[in-house]
């Protein structure tokens, strides 16, 4: 059996009085891609943002349950949130590079960690950009603004920026929904490459994307997980009626 990197048991989340998540049990295996699908507003982003504690930024959020990263409860009082976010990186739906040069974007996380050695930064920038499959496109203009790139290129720079920090887990919230089909395919192929080194958790509305690249799929509906299984099994013969209806486009 594969090693479980993140486990969550009976996770509830309240925005004020509204219970957005009603008891989520999920476990994510090392070096697998897990897709999270489900209709809009069912709580996928909310759940994803629990895993790197980005919900801490929103006032009036209450979280109960047990979420463990490698056996350690990440909501324990002694958790170092800064360290957690280095272990659990995040790629957002909209490409959000800083208004700095491509190079400064990629090495940002390392500089935060106090790395000053130029050679080390250069090396990290190159490996990360290569891993994010964008090195060839930007290697001659590393010191130009990242904002001058296309949306797809920006998103890959954002992925490189996360990779440079060498996280164990990468969370992705609809990373290709703002991109054209070719850019999306490039990123999907890149994720398949990255799978051997990272545990990837991916929210997507694109069923084709989920079935093509993910090992496991979790189907969310109104704040709960209806079905969680191997992607092939789920897409070929879903156990639950609701999953089947959703996959066949009957609602959502």
């Amino acid at each position: 059996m594969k090693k479980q990197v993140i486990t969550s048991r009976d996770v509830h989340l309240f925005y004020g009085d509204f219970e957005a998540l009603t008891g989520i049990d999920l476990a994510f295996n090392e070096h697998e891609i897990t897709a999270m699908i489900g209709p809009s507003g069912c709580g996928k982003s909310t759940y994803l943002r629990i895993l790197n504690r980005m919900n801490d930024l929103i006032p009036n959020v209450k979280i109960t349950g047990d979420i463990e990263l490698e056996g350690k409860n990440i909501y324990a009082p002694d958790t170092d949130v800064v360290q957690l976010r280095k272990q659990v990186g995040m790629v957002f739906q909209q490409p959000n590079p800083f208004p700095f040069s491509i190079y400064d974007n990629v090495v940002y996380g390392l500089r935060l960690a106090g790395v000053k050695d130029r050679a080390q930064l250069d090396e990290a920038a190159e490996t990360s950009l290569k891993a994010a499959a964008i090195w060839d496109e930007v290697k001659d203009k590393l010191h130009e603004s990242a904002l001058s790139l296309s949306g797809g290129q920006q998103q890959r720079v954002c992925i490189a920026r996360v990779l440079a920090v060498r996280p164990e887990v990468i969370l992705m919230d609809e990373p290709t929904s703002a991109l054209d089909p070719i850019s999306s395919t490039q990123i999907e192929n890149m994720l398949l490459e990255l799978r051997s080194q990272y545990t990837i958790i991916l929210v997507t509305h694109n069923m084709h994307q989920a079935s093509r690249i993910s090992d496991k799929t979790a189907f969310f509906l109104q704040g709960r997980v209806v079905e969680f299984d191997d992607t092939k099994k789920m897409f070929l013969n879903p156990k639950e009626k609701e999953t089947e209806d959703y996959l066949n486009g009957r609602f959502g």
Partner: protein
Amino acid sequence: MDPIKEAMLHRSKAAKLERRGRWISFTCISIIVLVVVAIFSFVATRGLATFFDNKVNLWSFLSKTTWSPAVKDAHGAPQVGALPMIVGSFGVTFLSAIVATPFAVGAAIFMTEISPQVGKRVLQPVIELLVGIPSVVYGFIGLSVVVPLIRNVFGGTGFGILAGTFVLFVMILPTVTSMTVDALSAVPRHYREASLALGGTRWQTISKVVLRAAMPGILTGVVFGMARAFGEALAVQMVIGNAALLPQNLISPASTLTSVLTSGIGNTVMGSLENNALWSLALLLLLMSLAFNLLIRWIGKKGEMK
């Protein structure tokens, strides 16, 4: 005639209104432009008269240190050296901006990043109040509190660049702060989220992303503050000592372009050299505020291009 034809031949009410509106706004604009052009050409002709009619050398105007237009020197040339006032003006401007900027940035960070509630409810009204206080009040407080304080601590008369700097610092602080607040709140939320998600602490996020992204806006605020400090007359005049001498230190009486203008303009006869020399100072002020304006535009353009 059928009604449609009639309607077509006559201008509709809306069209008439439109024409009238355009005419009114055009008139207003023309008047404004006329006034601006008139002011510029008036100040320019008067200010340049010193150099063309009274044959004062431009370089000696900018570099000589004796300001007594009524008196001629050994060679019979009028003594209009404006350097003391130029140094005084730039001195108080830069010093007050240098002192005000860290306070303004600190206050703005508090108001946008650390405690927006307190910022909105307490600090914002305080700042708006500070902007609204007339400059004579600042000058008066400077005269009755700051000047004696400096006199007691450092000795001397208490008048001088230090007192001027202090008064201007308080005066420009609200301007710079509120423009810095605008610049910081204009930084998109997703920059902050991206930085935090990469393992940045709150302070790292503020210093490395928010301040950096807001830099053009903050600089614009600082230049605005400097323009205000450079042009402020009354409050400075009350505390700087008004001695047209090259300042030797921060607590010796000095003067600025504006303070010499306000104290001297009533005592000269139009068309005389003394009067023309003051107009030259006014021209210098005008050109400097133009320069500040261009600087602000340039910073804005540079900020946009990124």
